[in-house]
């Protein structure tokens, strides 16, 4: 399965992936309208210390601990893509405790959100990939 991988060698810590992610999942056509004057809620986060930076998002694990931990059965695997049914989420934070990557986070709507590889929005392919100026984030089979 194609997954998102990040090469910290090329990650510049510019954080553009976060903005493209937030925009892609906003459901709004205009980036300015979607993001201006808002605290963004991206599903990818740039971790940074000193000169090293690294964008982190869901690894779409083959043995996803989040699915096992979900008490509401809201998290499922769809052809390997781990997706969350926000209508079933009860915001128990069990998944946050379980995920070793910190790839799940609360959404503005008061439920959990996570990277779904832009399969559930209109992007077609992950927006972070398209937005990365240095090809540090790639979407590929490994």
């Amino acid at each position, binding site marked *: 399965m194609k997954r998102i991988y990040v090469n910290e060698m090329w990650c510049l810590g510019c*954080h553009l992936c976060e903005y493209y992610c937030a925009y892609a999942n906003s459901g709004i056509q205009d980036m300015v309208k979607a993001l201006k004057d808002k605290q963004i809620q991206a599903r990818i986060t740039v971790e940074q210390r000193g000169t090293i930076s690294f964008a982190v998002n869901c690894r779409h694990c083959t043995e996803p601990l989040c699915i096992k931990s979900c008490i509401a059965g809201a998290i499922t695997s769809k052809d390997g893509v781990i997706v969350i049914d926000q209508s079933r989420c009860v915001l128990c934070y069990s998944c946050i405790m379980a995920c070793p990557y910190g790839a799940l986070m609360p959404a503005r709507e008061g439920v959990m959100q996570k990277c779904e590889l832009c399969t559930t929005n209109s992007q077609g392919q992950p927006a972070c990939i398209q937005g990365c100026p240095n090809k540090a984030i790639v979407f590929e089979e490994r």
Partner: protein
Amino acid sequence: MGINYLYPPFEIIRNQDRCIACRVCERQCANLVHHYDEDKKRMTADESLCVNCHRCVSLCPTRALKIVKTDHTFKENANWKTEVIEDIYRQAQSGGVLLASMGTPKEYPVYWDKMLINASQVTNPSIDPLREPMETRTYLGKKSAKITRDGEGRIITSTTGQLKLDIPIMFSAMSYGSISYNAHKSLAMAASELGTFYNTGEGGLHKDFYQYGKNTIVQVASGRFGVHPEYLNAGAAIEIKMGQGAKPGIGGHLPGSKIGEDISATRMIPLHADAISPAPHHDIYSIEDLRQLVYALKEATRYTKPVIVKVAAVHNISAIASGIARSGADIIAIDGFRGGTGAAPARIRDNVGIPIELALASVDQRLRQEGIRGNVSLVVGGSIRSSSDVIKAIALGADAVYIATSALVALGCHLCRTCHSGKCNWGIATQNPELVKRLNPEVGSQHLVNLLTAWNHEIKEMMGGMGINSIEALKGNRLMLRGIALHETELKILGIAHAGQ
């Protein structure tokens, strides 16, 4: 601090309606132009620091930024122009030589733009490169002057080293030091994929890049940085750098601040020591000395590699080239005065040397008059900007061209001409690891491959239009060129007729 006479040349126009304060501009500007004002909750900028490199503009996701020239002005004066006055202020303050980078921005004639290319109509057919073979392969090197045969009458086909180019375009010398590791790697990877050559410049060859050796030209310059037997044998050819178009007659200076561990090891000089290339080679004070170095290098590589002698285009270039053609060199590279540099005194860059078009035309003609054009191949550089420049150069008589500025532009360079600051936001002319990583060689080499592939398509289209299906039939084919808006002397030097003639 005194009075600052200089007003910032650019203004940063930020459309606050579009700015989402993502702060990418702030994070990506090595000149620290942008910052986020916590109180006002908006981005602001200090335009006095801006070099107009467009990094922020290119990365801004909402296109909220643009850089414009300031309309602040001096009282208009055709003689004492703004830059003239400002240069005086700078020197009055610093007492130093003005430094500049890349090719001269001054308004000198660009002869490429004053030549037009021919095409076939009626009397002979144009050739469609999509349907017929169209050859751009070129061999560089000395051509045998006579045919020798073995006992059975078969031609003996040994040649001195020849460089085989799939396209008549090579990447010209840019040292590791003047440009970054990743820029070098991009060039090396692209040259391998394209079947052409890149050039180490005078900074030696990083150990990681020996693997690209068969697509590498290794340079020997006056500083002899990083020159050792393994290095000489690592490449496909050796270039002796006598001069550079942007700064004929002077050497180079890579400041100690840029000499980090890798560069120090590659150049074989102490860490953080300034790398100073002398103006001349101190073992070459005359043409006969050059011949000795040519043969010393041939000896060192057991006569397997062609030797290139690179010179800047100066006034008596044709006599110089004639001397080089008889020195044992296989290839002469001529660098025109519009060529780029990582750093040069501005006055020299803007005033010394001659345009490559005129240098090329006169050298090619002179070598033919002397009957020695076959002794050497001619490679020219110094602002080859497009495929049509390549066509025109070859029709004037070049065997191939060198490009460097065009290659850097393909890597993202926006010609802000502040390479000498070492703070290249595009990761090209810098040794700061934070900035160097901005150029991912995978992306960079792909851009270079794309650029030359596109040029090659265009070259083939234009050749086909002329009814020429092999690049060698274009070489020196000056009938394929006509001058436009040129006077008699220029036409005579270029050896072409005027349009309509």
